[in-house]
């Protein structure tokens, strides 16, 4: 920890939250405005890398959903795969998306299997690329902490 840049460690916490929120915003608005699951996932990866550089890869990994990179990756893939099933059940081709509008008291909430698919892509990209990045950073980290062998 001592060797890390203090400013980065201090800035990392708010920045991490901002980037994650921004990535979620990009994910959710993606269907109508520029954005989407892939780009949102990439932004989340950069947040994770930021945390990894500032506080170490173990801490960054613990901050990932379910505490590891593999879980969000696999769950995301499963979500994306499952999102195609409702269309299949309706007798359409696999991945024909369904959409519903839920009316609450005064708010209309639009839901669809597309959203599920995009969340899946988001999680899969985040998990997979964060997994790569953290594993590579970890190797580097060790060298640094262990000093020259």
């Amino acid at each position: 920890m001592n060797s890390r840049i203090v400013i980065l460690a201090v800035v990392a916490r708010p920045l991490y939250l901002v980037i994650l929120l921004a990535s979620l915003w990009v994910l959710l608005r993606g269907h109508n405005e520029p954005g989407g699951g892939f780009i949102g996932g990439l932004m989340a990866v950069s947040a994770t890398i930021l945390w990894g550089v500032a506080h170490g890869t173990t801490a960054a990994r613990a901050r990932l959903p379910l505490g590891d990179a593999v879980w969000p990756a696999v769950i995301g893939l499963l979500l994306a795969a499952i999102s195609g099933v409702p269309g299949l059940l309706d007798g359409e081709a696999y991945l024909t998306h369904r959409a519903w509008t839920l009316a609450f008291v005064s708010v209309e909430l639009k839901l669809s299997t597309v959203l599920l698919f995009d969340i899946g892509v988001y999680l899969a990209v985040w998990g997979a690329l964060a997994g790569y990045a953290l594993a590579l950073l970890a190797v580097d980290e060790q060298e640094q902490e262990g000093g020259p062998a």
Partner: protein
Amino acid sequence: MTVTTPNAAMSVAGRALFTLAPVTALAAVLWLLATQALPLTLSWVWIPALDIELAFRIDGLSALMLLMITGVGVAVFVYAGGYLSGHPDQKRAYLLLGLFMVAMIGCVTADHVLVLFVFWEGTSLLSFLLVGFYHERQESRRSAQQSLLVTGTGGLVLLAGFIVLGQTVGSYRLSEIIVLVPTMEVTPTLTLAMGLILVGAFTKSAQFPFHFWLPNAMAAPTPVSAYLHSATMVKLGVYLLARLDPAFGEWPLWVWLLKGVGSVTAAWGMVLALRERDLKRILAWSTVATLGTLVVLVGLRGESAALAVGALLLAHALYKAPLFFVAGNIDHGAGPRLIDRLGGLRRQMPWTAAAALLAAASLAGLPLSFGFVAKDVISEAKSVGEVFTFARMANTVFGTIAVAVAGITAVRVFWLRPPPGAVRQAHEGGAALVLPPLVLGLVGLVLGMFPLLAQDLLAGAAMAMSPAGAGTALTAPLDPQPDVGSLLLGLLFGATVFLLWDRLYRGLEWLAGRTGRIGMSSIYERTLAWIPRVAAGITRRAQNGSLPVYVAWVLASVAVPLATLLWLGRGQWTWPAAEMPSAGLAGAASLVILGAVFACLMRDRLVVLLSVGLIGYGSAVMFLFLGAPDVAYTQFTMETVFVIVAAAVLLKLRRMGLDRAVPEPAWRPGALALSLLVASVLTALLLAVYATPFDPVLSEFFGEQSVPAAYGRNVVNVILVDFRALDTLGEVAVVVLSLLAALPVLQAWRRRARTPVAGGRS
């Protein structure tokens, strides 16, 4: 020879349960023949988009094949129960044999040629697995590979033939093809289809020059040899030829190819039998020769020829399978199968000796055997059909050596005095080993005495092989007239060869020693050895471990074909009208150029990486100004992540002391030339693209349908998650799977870094 491990051996009940499969199938076939009017058609929708139906049609020929498949199947399953008793993999043998039976049934009942092809390849694959049953032996593995390569390649050629035929004729149904083809003109395309199909059929039925794989397939356990490589699978080629004979039968080329290739196979196969000492291989060569005779008979015109095909198919199944069982009993009860070490076995193995006599009588064509009936029908077919002299000579060679082979398998090893050094200890197998050959032999005897029993079956098969329209019933009863003169002459010749067997063997060996290794088998071996040598040579040159060389290969193999294509289509593009770029675009372009120039000039890898990143950012800015914010976003983020990860790797390398500066390339002029080529090809490509009017069908469709069909205004995202969702799913799956594959490697690397290595390089 079998490995006995008490816990792995199958119980009697388990074996009986497996044997139920062919018994049920046989019962079903008998029920079908007894109650249903042929031809019987069934069909289900399978792949509607390609107009492929699971169409089946059972006519007389299918019925004959079905009876052979299930009837011999019962015998084989019973026999396998005894022969492989106690073998740890007996269950596997049963399972594969059962699957094989299903594939065979599918093959001989399929009406759609592509359905037939699927089952056809299934039999090849199962043959591979069954020939390699004793997978611990290298010989088995090599033979299995050979049979798969020959029949599998033939199968692919057959598929090509089927597709050409189906597209030309306009139907993939066998029942329609044989009606349509005779009405069509002989075109080169149709001839090509015929040739391809012939290759497929010839490889499967081990016709010259593809005959060499069948004897090698004898590495399989004996029940497998009896079933696949004598009674059923190798007959598939003949079956297909007989099926298509009504279509092509009037073509001189078809007739001459069948007669020619079949005759050569019939004679040469029998001559090669003289070079063998192993009982099973002798039988295998005689099978090859019989298949050749069958092909000749398919090629002959006339209804008696069709009848002869059916009769020989049936007779061969009824005598060759028992003879294989006899050979199996000998290696099971005595040990070796080499005829030099066998003799006088009748005392120890009386039942097997009896079965061998029954079956061999049929092989030799003695009166009262079904083989005699078959021989009679064949000679009648030849008296009617137009046979050329060579085919007659080939048939004489075939008949003569067949008698000798019958003598070897039934007389020499059982009745003649054992040669010096012969096996002394031998014992008869159990009921499961003795009954199948005896029963099949007896069926042959009964049919030989009362040939009218098989009349309807064979007439039905012959009907199916007759040209459409000529549906004259075959009324001539199967009533063989013994022609005493030719019969005795044949036996005399046969007996002579039998007595001279060893001398002929030595003579042929001497001849073979003089001529050296020529023949299909050695050509096959040489080809097989040649493939990895060429592949290794190419790999050594193309993938020498140097990254710049790889990049050069990739770029060159993209640029050169593209350049050729562009050159062929030159003159179609013009320079677009020059227009002043906007300030933003100009700035972005200069960023890209700056990055590219720096990347070329710098020698420190980290600086080069950053310069390359500059190119990425520059193009992202360009996207932003060109109205593609999505792409720009993604480019920005991707570029950032890429630079960070690559920098991490570079820093790691630097710490390991592997971070040398980019060396001066030894082939700078070459690299420059390649770069110029790639750059000019890309420029030319862009110009060509500009010259082609833009086809807006897709973008208009996506633009129009995005909101109504997918409820999204962001067309790019809608394409990704809805219109092309399956592609995206596949890409995401690749990303996740690559992580799962890479993690163990990275973690191992990390673990190795953690354990301090004494004296390790730092």
